[in-house]
């Protein structure tokens, strides 16, 4: 019995999952060379060749001057960055599981040159040829200051870092600020959308449709393997197109994020999409520590009102209480709490009211009532003592 036969039989009898889940047959790679229909060009780097194609299109993405996106894409004070300083990036990989065994076989990058969006797609013709790709990526990414991705902070960027390390190279993107649009999208539009997948946001927020000929993300690893193993490139073009659309989508989402940010500079007034729009803006303002603006916007959201009794309504009220507190808007806070208590809100509203009356508005009797209703015996006790002290007239000498 030969070793292969034995291995096959042992695997079967051990009840192991079959080893055939979407691997690559053969050991030849894309023996026939790169398919012409992909339109790939070769760039030479000191580390070896890199295959890529380039594409240009006009009129998409934000304006040339980008607003300061702190609170939306980054915690830090963002450096003043122009559109031309931003690199868009999206990878297509051999799997979604992460770890050192996953390759990026297509790295799409995009940037603006004047009015045009330039898309360059770096293609990996076979495993073991990553060095050229990584060297070219490092060279092309060098002039930029921020990299814009969708979930890149958790996926694309660590993956490329790992690939670089495994090829004993430095991280080609280490010098760039990471602007991940996924958490930004969650913050800005999460409540209004069914989910925050990139395509959902493109469709629901930017009005973009992928149209015919796009490929499902889950099928992508298999397409590359099929090409690699069997030389069948028929679906590769779809993957390149998909990646290109992803980059275009990134540009569009970045544009909408900038637009949302610019709204913060305008007076807080009601608009379409409220209360969710105003609520999201309040949140962003709060992350920027612009508490007055946050309070203005949460006021707009409250005025628009969420559907009473829903989870959204309860969350909105609680978040509003927090933002009003941070802004020191005691009268508005009192109004909010009273209306919430009238509407049947539970212990939290009474507790907030007790704190507000005790600490800010100095109305201890009211505080005592709410502390009782919030079932907070320690606070009740303290308030009773304070009330007793203020009720007893002080003895002064000679009386």
């Amino acid at each position, binding site marked *: 019995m030969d070793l292969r036969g034995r291995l096959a039989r042992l695997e079967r009898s051990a009840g192991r999952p079959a080893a055939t889940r979407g*691997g690559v047959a053969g050991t030849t790679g894309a023996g026939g060379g790169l398919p012409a229909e992909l339109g790939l060009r070769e760039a030479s780097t000191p580390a070896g060749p890199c295959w890529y194609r380039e594409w240009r299109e006009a009129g998409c993405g934000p304006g040339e001057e980008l607003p300061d996106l702190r609170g939306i894409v980054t915690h830090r004070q963002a450096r003043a960055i122009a559109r031309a300083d931003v690199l868009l990036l999206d990878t297509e990989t051999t799997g979604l599981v992460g770890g050192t065994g996953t390759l990026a076989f297509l790295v799409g990058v995009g940037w603006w040159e004047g009015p045009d969006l330039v898309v360059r797609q770096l293609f990996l013709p076979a495993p073991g040829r990553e060095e050229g790709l990584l060297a070219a990526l490092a060279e092309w990414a060098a002039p930029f200051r921020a990299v814009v991705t969708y979930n890149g902070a958790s996926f694309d960027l660590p993956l490329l870092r790992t690939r670089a390390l495994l090829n004993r190279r430095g991280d080609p993107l280490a010098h760039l600020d990471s602007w991940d649009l996924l958490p930004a999208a969650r913050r800005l539009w999460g409540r209004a959308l069914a989910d925050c997948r990139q395509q959902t946001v493109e469709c629901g927020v930017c009005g973009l449709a992928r149209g015919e000929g796009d490929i499902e993300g889950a099928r992508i690893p298999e397409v590359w393997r099929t090409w690699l193993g069997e030389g069948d490139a028929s679906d590769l073009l779809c993957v390149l197109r998909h990646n290109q659309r992803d980059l275009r989508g990134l540009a569009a989402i970045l544009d909408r994020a900038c637009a949302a940010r610019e709204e913060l500079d305008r007076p807080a007034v009601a608009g379409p999409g409220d209360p969710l729009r105003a609520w999201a803006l309040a949140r962003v303002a709060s992350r920027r520590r612009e508490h007055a603006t946050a309070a203005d916007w949460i006021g707009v959201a409250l005025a628009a009102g969420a559907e009473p009794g829903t989870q959204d309504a309860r969350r909105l009220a609680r978040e509003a209480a927090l933002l009003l507190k941070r802004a020191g808007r005691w009268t508005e806070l009192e109004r909010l709490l009273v209306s919430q208590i009238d509407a049947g809100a539970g212990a939290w509203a009474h507790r907030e009211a007790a704190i507000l009356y005790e600490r800010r508005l100095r109305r201890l009797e009211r505080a005592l009532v709410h502390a009782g209703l919030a079932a907070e015996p320690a606070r009740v006790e303290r308030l009773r003592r304070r009330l007793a002290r203020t009720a007893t007239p002080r003895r002064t000498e000679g009386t």
Partner: protein
Amino acid sequence: MNLTQLLDQLKADERFLRHVTRWEVIPPQPARTAPFPASLEPRLREALRRRGVDELYTHQAAAVALAAAGRSFVVPTPTASGKTLCYNLPVLDAILRDPQARALYLFPTKALAQDQMHEVHGLVTELGADIRTFTFDGDTPETARRAIRSSGHIVVTNPDMLHQGILPHHTLWVKLFENLRFVVVDEVHQYRGVFGSHVANVLRRLRRVARFYGADPQFICCSATIANPLELAERLTGREMAEVGDNGAPRGLKHFIFYNPPVVNRELGIRASTIKTTRAIAERFLGTGAQMIVFARSRMRVELLLTYLEKAGRRVGIRGGEVRGYRGGYLPGERRAIEQGLRDGSVKAVVSTNALELGIDIGRLDVCVMAGYAGTVAATWQQAGRAGRRQNVSAVVLVASSSPADQYIVTNPDFFFGRSPEHATLDPDNLIVQMSHLKCAAFELPFREDEDYGGRRVTEILDYLCDNRVLHRAEGRYHWMADTYPAEDVSLRSAAPDNVVIIDDSRPGGLVIGEMDLFSAQEMLHDDAIYIHGAQQHHVDRLDWERREAHVQPVRVDYYTDAQRKSELKTLTADEQKAHGEGALAVGEIGLVSKVTVYKKIKLGTHENVGAGRVHLPEMEMHTTGFWWEVPESAAAALASRGLDLGDALKGLAHLLGCVAPVFIMADSADLHATAMIRSPFTGRPTLYLYDSVPGGVGYARRIYEQFDEICRAARSHLAGCPCGHGCPACVGATVDSGDTARAGAAWLLARAGAGDADADARATAAEG
């Protein structure tokens, strides 16, 4: 009555002594010490002095010296002999000299890792140096992981986490791998059989990844006392090692008693129940106020004994919470509380599976009672080591079961108290294990075509994986190409990756109370089984095999269930064979189909059989390695001429060897099975089989092939010493199972198992008794 008084009373108790096959008094031993080696970092010496340590035990000093010389080494040492300093000192010394240095500690279980972390932490705190030690396991919060990866000097983990969580993400651990100076592997004797074969491969992968980052760490291993610690450690780590002998730790006076319960049925050779005997003995110790641990061999027996001892405890004023159970399947919080209770004395007695055999810190107790031999001499000494304070007297009682391994040990006490005869066995080159890890290794780093793995070329397996679309060969390397995460499909603990989840349907929404591997689940969680968990009986309403779920409800019934498995064996290929007398010995590949068919209901307390039922579950199929002995064709006639039956003889001999062999090869009796065929379709002759009961095998069969003569000698002397008439479970099996002539027949065959010498007949006569 205190412990010493009870021991005096037992010494004078004729009825008790009648069943004691050995009362070994192990004298106290003073400490043997050596001064701190000159190479030891001064800050470390100071810290030890502040903790009241002015010199080291001899074995600790030897370990420090070997580490300083750049050697890898193994320290075989009993429980509680200060082995942690053997690795903590070299590691801390290295980090004090070079703050970039890193170490990785591996413990076989998560619980043990947590426990040892506290130990290192104590010494580090004393040092006052910035040395960061962290445990990294499945419970480590995501938020802490980044800090551990970059700044942990000592990372304490288990092989499973290394396999699934660290190696496949090694690029996140650059700091650790680039500076990896030491790998500490504790309890190496645990890494044998399937688990050991897997772990050896995980360590091959670890060294491979470390090499990528330019590191070649020293290995420090600790082991219980076995015959081949050096061989085991070298096979496990793939490195040349030194062995540290001369254990210098002190110990107190210890009484070690072998108790063989009385024969209750001379005809069948059956002895009084181990559980009932253990219960009676443990109850006597419970009355002395001594802190006690009782070891039982299965989860079910733990629960049974717990139920009995709780009741007995109440009679002597011990409350329910002071007698506790401890085993796999209990939640971590519950376990921590019990460990703490044992340390602070609030738990008076604990009934445990071997989960507490390992070095989890529960302090030192006074008494250890073992319901049955722990399966290996090493494990038995480890369990016994739980009892024994430095000053006071301690007592250990081993209550033997009727099984031949137990009987072999209690009737041959010199085997136990002499030098350890046990060889720990593992086979890192088991094809299926190795292939699983080659996938993981290729995922971690592409394989070069000219790269060795485990000291040899593996291109044939890599090419097989290419054919199966798992790897891709390009640019002189094999690259991982599937879209899965291979480590997820490989469980180190079992050959089969799946588990059955146990769900208590009486709780709202169904509460998961435990998990069990498929093989055991067929025996313990079949429909209508009584599954005991936390001393609570549960009725299995439904085992949903497809969904891997067992639905149970708490019940109170007066019986438990015991399922029977039937197997069928097919020989596939012989890899190696040699003539042996008129017959032949061989080792090769076999196929096995097994099925649980029926179960018995057994009454609690009396252990009577009170009913039975059928089990309808699918067959389990397995390919493994087997050893077989082709018995000479002439045996049938020769036996018949003596009025003996070949079938009985083979069956009896299979029973006997199936139980004596594991003692030599350090296998659990469940890991090695024995069976016989009057005419094997493969050999065409009467044939006796001993095979590894794990897919692919882990080297047991091969070791038996090599040690067959030695095993037969032991079996012959055991058979000759067995006091039964025609056979009992302790030797060739009860006559109802093996037949009336099994003992004489087995003895006759066994006499011929020693390469055809002239004294065979004389030996057979002697063995027949």
